[in-house]
């Protein structure tokens, strides 16, 4: 069992270097094949690890530096548990799908694209598996560097690159915040191992400025990656220009990794020392999540650039994921995990449809594409299946995740949270349905006064890739996304895994003292009536709002004027200016830091 754990990342990584070594002489198809096989091998290895960590975390010490029980850890450990290993499987499987989709994207130096994709996927897998704070930062930077480069890779269109620049600068500043946090924790505890830091902080029992600042800095740094308001500005710019298969990984897993990291750090490091402050932490993070969910949904409704529209929908969902983690309950965490799975598959399919439209019609603008999708029925089916999955219909798609979140929130007394989640879902899904109906059915008016003004984009000439293969992958993802909601027993399993994930005491003793993990009781989870009601509401709401918003041009001019006036400042804030973005980032850290500083004492 043990040697499998390092192989999950080592196999894709060494394949990347192998492609680099001989890529110049390698046939393009061969480089592609190596990439797909390496991603699949990684996914299978991760699945094998997942199958064997059912009881809890399983530490693997690199370099043979396994500490004697109870002694100080000198090396770096991977600590896969079911949530972490499951995430790794998802990352690598999605990577394989993205690589198959880009199979016939013929460009010069194509092997470099395969290398960067493999580095990106392996880095994300390493990030979720590691149990070491600085190793987390290393994988964070590796995934970032690959992601920045992939954003700028113009396979499809010759768009300006400041989106990649904004992305790189914002995320790099986020990483510096994380390093500041790491340095603070290291200065206090003299350790980098998550379990060791956690147990030392807990033993110390001091919740002073250092602990609060370290938590705020690390959380904010990772929330930049998670595109949480006001750190979210880079996301739409990056998604608008990144190639579709890259967007699949960005929206499907990379953004979610930021949230995962916050959960991982909270539950291994800070849960003990900040445990008595669960209330303020929960309130602050839920507040931030709600703002993100609502803002993402509102902005989503105003986009005509399809990839940008999908990007804002990702922001809305990221807010919901953060809410799930912020509830600080196993059920909430499990809800987010299941939700991430369904969302990643469905959103991936939507981006791939965007890529197909771009290749078939050299256009990504909703209004200009009106009715042009009729020639691509399979892509249309995938689009609506994926949109349906995101609308959280009863027992399909994101339903299970939503239901777990709603239940957990209601149990804690946040009776209004399901309404916020429903608003975010309706807002973002309605926009996706609107775009789909306009593009694939040709419905709706030819103009919409509320949509943003986008400059028409020029497309670079390229060889036409195989649309059949692309549509196949897209359909597969879309229906897999729908099927997640119908997967019997998934919820109970994930809730159990979440109980293991949040058990800091057990994690610490497994990692440091080599005790076998304590089995958690089997969980049974039943759908409640209220979650079915909410699910019907979001489905009906999405369909109604989506259809009505096709005809916004028919609203009286006075109404649209007022709306446009209200939305103008919001639009203006998303200026594409990196200076603005960094100002907002600083503002966000100051506000969140201030809130924590005044509530935790």
């Amino acid at each position, binding site marked *: 069992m043990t040697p499998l754990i390092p192989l999950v990342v080592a196999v894709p990584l060494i394949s990347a270097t192998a492609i680099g070594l001989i890529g110049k002489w390698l046939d393009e198809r061969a480089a592609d094949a190596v990439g797909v096989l390496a991603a699949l091998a990684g996914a299978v290895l991760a699945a094998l690890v997942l199958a064997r960590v059912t009881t809890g975390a399983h530490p693997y010490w690199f370099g043979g530096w396994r500490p004697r029980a109870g002694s100080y850890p000198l090396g770096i450990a991977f600590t896969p548990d079911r949530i972490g290993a499951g995430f790794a499987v998802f990352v690598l499987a999605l990577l394989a799908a993205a690589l198959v989709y880009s199979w016939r994207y013929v460009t010069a130096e194509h092997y470099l694209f395969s290398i960067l994709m493999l580095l990106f996927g392996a880095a994300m897998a390493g990030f979720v598996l590691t149990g070491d704070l*600085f190793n987390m930062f*290393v994988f964070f*930077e590796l995934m*970032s*560097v690959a992601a*920045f*480069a992939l954003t*700028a890779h113009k396979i499809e269109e*010759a768009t*300006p*690159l*400041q*989106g*990649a*620049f904004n992305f*790189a*600068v914002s995320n*790099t*500043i986020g*990483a*510096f915040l994380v*390093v*500041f946090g*790491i*340095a603070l924790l*290291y*200065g206090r505890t003299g350790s*980098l191992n998550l379990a060791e830091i956690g147990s030392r902080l807990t033993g110390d029992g001091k919740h002073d400025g250092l602990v609060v600042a370290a938590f705020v800095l690390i959380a904010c740094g990772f929330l930049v990656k998670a595109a949480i308001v006001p750190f979210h500005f880079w996301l*739409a*710019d990056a998604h*608008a*220009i990144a190639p579709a298969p890259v967007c699949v990984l960005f929206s499907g897993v990379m953004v979610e990794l930021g949230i995962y990291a916050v959960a991982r750090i909270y539950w291994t490091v800070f849960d003990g020392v900040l445990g008595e402050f669960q209330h303020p932490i929960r309130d602050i993070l839920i507040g931030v999540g709600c703002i993100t969910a609502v803002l993402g949904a509102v*902005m989503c409704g*105003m*986009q005509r650039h399809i990839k*940008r529209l999908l990007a804002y929908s990702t922001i809305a969902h990221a807010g919901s994921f953060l809410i799930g983690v912020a509830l600080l309950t196993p059920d909430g965490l499990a809800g987010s995990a299941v939700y991430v799975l369904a969302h990643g598959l469905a959103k991936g399919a939507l981006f791939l449809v965007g890529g197909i439209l771009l290749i078939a019609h050299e256009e990504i603008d909703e209004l200009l594409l009106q009715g042009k999708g009729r020639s691509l029925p399979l892509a249309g089916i995938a689009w609506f299946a994926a949109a349906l999955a995101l609308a959280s219909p009863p027992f399909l798609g994101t339903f299970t995740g939503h239901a777990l979140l709603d239940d957990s929130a209601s149990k804690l007394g946040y009776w209004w949270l399901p309404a916020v989640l429903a608003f975010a879902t309706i807002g973002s899904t309605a926009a996706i349905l609107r775009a789909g109906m306009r593009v694939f059915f040709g419905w709706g008016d030819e103009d919409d006064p509320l949509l*943003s*003004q986008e*400059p028409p984009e020029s497309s670079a000439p390229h060889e036409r890739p195989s649309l059949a293969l692309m549509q196949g992958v897209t359909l597969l993802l879309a229906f897999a996304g729908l099927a997640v909601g119908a997967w019997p027993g998934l919820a109970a399993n994930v809730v159990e895994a979440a109980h293991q994930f949040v058990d800091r005491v057990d994690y610490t003793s497994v990692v440091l003292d080599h005790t076998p993990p304590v089995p958690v009781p089997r969980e049974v989870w039943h759908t409640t009536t209220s979650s079915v009601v909410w699910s019907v509401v979001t489905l009906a709401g999405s369909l109604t709002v989506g259809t009505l918003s096709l005809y916004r041009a028919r609203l009286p001019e006075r109404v649209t004027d007022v709306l446009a006036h209200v939305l103008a400042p919001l*639009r203006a804030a*998303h*200026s*594409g*200016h*990196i*200076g603005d973005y*960094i*100002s907002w980032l*600083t503002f966000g850290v100051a506000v969140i830091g201030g809130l924590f500083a005044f509530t935790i004492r």
Partner: protein
Amino acid sequence: MTYLPYALSVWIFVCGLYGIVSSRNLIHITVCVSVCQSATYVLLLAIGYRKHGTAPIFSDMPTRGRTIVDPIVQSLTLTDIVVSVAVAALLLTFALKVFEHHHSLDPGEIAGLKG
């Protein structure tokens, strides 16, 4: 009691951020990002420093009495420096590509993605 080196790292970080926010040139921003990053080197090394400590390099087997500074933070800083160069090279590449497209490096002039 002295906290001066820690304060220095905060000062460098804020300076770098100010440079990014006020900048009118993408290459200038790249340099400011590197300055920001140097704040993290200073902080890490300052944390691992010991009064009268020497570098953790031995010409003979270590003796208990000798005070040495922390080797871990130094190794972390080394990694940090490599990251900084890699990111700088990438940012400059983006800047070049932006310039080829817009004939400008001013983030105010090139902000084409809005709303």
